């Protein structure tokens, strides 16, 4: 479409800018999640992810050592020390009351009354001095605003994989996904071949049924199937969810594969028939290999759908650690760890990483499947 006669240079620029804006709008939310999942959890809690590269300001509430540690120096009683426990940091400002935590700059001396003074240097070292011996059991409060250099870490991932159970949920999700992708393909491929290349009464009606079943809301199936699974003793478990996903995925699988198989060259299949090949042989040796692109398309759909599913897993699987999938675990974390973004972002990114890899690796087949699968 490039280089229309009527197209002006300014319009081209407008197109570039408009597309750039769209791309930014569509990627920034995910990018924010990714950046945040690698940030130090204390920094993440107090500053936006877009400031991740600049030093963040943190308020530390410290105390001087207790008066037990005081020493006499040239007629004054003094306590020396450092406000930073690690001994490292940079003081931006400090104060002695929570109402004015930034009253003084580094190097300033604060008059605390009764002849006591406090000075805090930029490196965090303080000097508390008094005219007479200090008493009491606790030290003086110091509020310090320090500039902390940006810190990136993979600790968050370690936490969610281990302590928060995402590692186990990751395995559970795979356990659900793989059979739930493979089984419907096998079952559907035979049905699709029959609907595409075999002649029998009721074929048109069956095709219409498949098209109709494409849009049946799966909400309708939840209660009846759960009751059915309970009645036959299957209960909640992996076997039940594989069957459920197979049932829900089958209409699209049959529809996609049949549409593709119908388009295969008629000569090859008729020719094989004349040569005495049975339908089973034609299916296995000719149709199945030629249908690879459609099989791949559906496999990606079904994989993404079963991986990303929450509802079917909530209904057909239990809530124990051995059956909770990633989406279910993350929803649980959203409830229990609502404010702990370091946990939520890392967990969410782990759960979307696999679909994103599949997406970018197999985009071609996904697009092809979408184009074939939207009912015309």
């Amino acid at each position: 479409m490039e280089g229309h006669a009527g197209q002006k240079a300014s319009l081209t620029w407008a197109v570039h800018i408009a597309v750039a804006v769209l791309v930014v709008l569509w990627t920034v939310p995910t990018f924010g999640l990714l950046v945040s999942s690698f940030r130090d959890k204390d920094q993440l809690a107090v500053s936006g992810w877009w400031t991740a590269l600049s030093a963040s300001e943190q308020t530390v509430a410290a105390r001087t050592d207790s008066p037990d540690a005081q020493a006499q120096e040239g007629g004054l009683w003094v306590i020396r020390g450092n406000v930073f426990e690690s001994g490292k940091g940079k003081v931006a400002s400090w104060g002695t009351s929570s109402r004015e935590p930034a009253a003084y700059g580094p190097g300033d001396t604060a008059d605390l009354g009764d002849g006591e003074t406090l000075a805090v240097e930029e490196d965090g070292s303080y000097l508390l001095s008094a005219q007479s011996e200090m008493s009491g059991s606790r030290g003086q409060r110091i509020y310090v605003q320090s500039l902390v250099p940006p810190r990136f870490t993979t600790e968050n991932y370690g936490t969610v994989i281990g302590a928060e159970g995402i590692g186990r949920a990751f395995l559970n999700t795979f356990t659900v996904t793989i059979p739930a992708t493979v089984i419907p393909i096998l079952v559907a491929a035979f049905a699709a071949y029959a609907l595409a290349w075999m002649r029998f009464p009721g074929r048109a009606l069956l095709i219409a049924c498949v098209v109709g079943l494409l849009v049946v809301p799966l909400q309708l199936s939840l209660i009846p199937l759960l009751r059915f699974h309970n009645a036959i003793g299957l209960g909640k478990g992996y076997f039940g969810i594989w069957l459920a996903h197979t049932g829900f995925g089958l209409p699209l699988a049959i529809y996609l594969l049949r549409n593709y198989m119908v388009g295969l060259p008629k000569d090859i299949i008729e020719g094989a028939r004349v040569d005495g090949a049975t339908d089973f042989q034609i299916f296995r040796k000719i149709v199945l290999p030629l249908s690879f692109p459609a099989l791949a398309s559906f496999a990606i759909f079904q994989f993404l759908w079963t991986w990303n599913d929450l509802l079917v897993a909530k209904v057909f699987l239990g809530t124990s650690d051995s059956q909770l999938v990633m989406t279910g675990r993350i929803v649980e974390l959203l409830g229990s760890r609502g404010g702990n973004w370091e946990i939520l972002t890392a967990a969410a990114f782990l759960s979307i990483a696999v679909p994103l890899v599949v997406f970018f690796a197999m985009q071609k087949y996904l697009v092809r499947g979408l184009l074939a699968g939207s009912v015309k």
Partner: protein
Amino acid sequence: MGQILYAAATIVVGVFLCVAYFWGSNAVLDRIFPMKGPQAAANVRKANAIRPWLFLGPSILVLALYLVYPVFNSIWLSLHGSGGQEFVGLDNYVWLFGDAKFLESVRNNLLWLVFVPSMATFFGLVAAALTDRIKWGNFAKSLIFMPMAISFVGAAVIWKFVYDYRGADQEQIGLLNAIVVGLGGDPVAWITVPFWNNFFLMVILVWIQTGFAMVILSAALRGIPEETIEAAILDGASPLQIFWRIKIPQIWGTIAVVWTTITILVLKIFDIVFAMTNGQWGSQVLANMMYDWSFRAGDFGRGSAIAVILMLAVTPIMVWNIRNARKEGN
């Protein structure tokens, strides 16, 4: 580890059983009606009449059990009490239409139905039209398409982070509130603002579905015959005129397909609401309400009644799809 082995073993056994069924049943059929001997012609005819049903058997069984039977069973359950025992007639439906949460869900679902398909189709169309004109268009498309691969739950976390709210005295870590504060406004707890929070949830689905609309519409735009566009250029039409007057009318069919596909998805929307608000603050939708009543309250009668309402809502689209498919088939 044992679990992985269990899953792997199931795949192997499942695949083996499938193959054994199809291969075995075909072999048996060939043995009963051999393709040679005095009755070869009659045998072939008989075998060919039976074979399609061997191929279709497992699919028909699964579809009947997992999709067709539930439709009727749901209707039956919706006429019964919470445990599915005593017959209550239309009581569940009468209760539904008097329930404030149900009416709120219907209103919200209608809002979703208007807003999400229209916005996703609009942005998809704009993205498709614009990216087709530039060199890095495919790269841009890929990125706009990416949210399609992200789960609704993952998207909910992503956007909950964007909408995050801190008190006005704290630094905002949510992008939206940071922008609002940066422009001199006050931070807002977006997802708790009744009525408007619905739109903040809808944005998530628009964000996910725009890529889908873009991919389909982009293919349709490329399929437009060049002659119609060239003729318009010769007549002196501007690019915008070409787009709205020449291209759009030729892809109406595809726009309708995109619109209805997203509509069906929207009717069933569950995960986003479940993860973001769980229907609080006036954001309830039918699918989430159905889940609440069925699996939290354990009332299968009321849950099924809501599911049946959902089924009724998709029925027109279903009929339309079947009619179109049959027209194409003939």
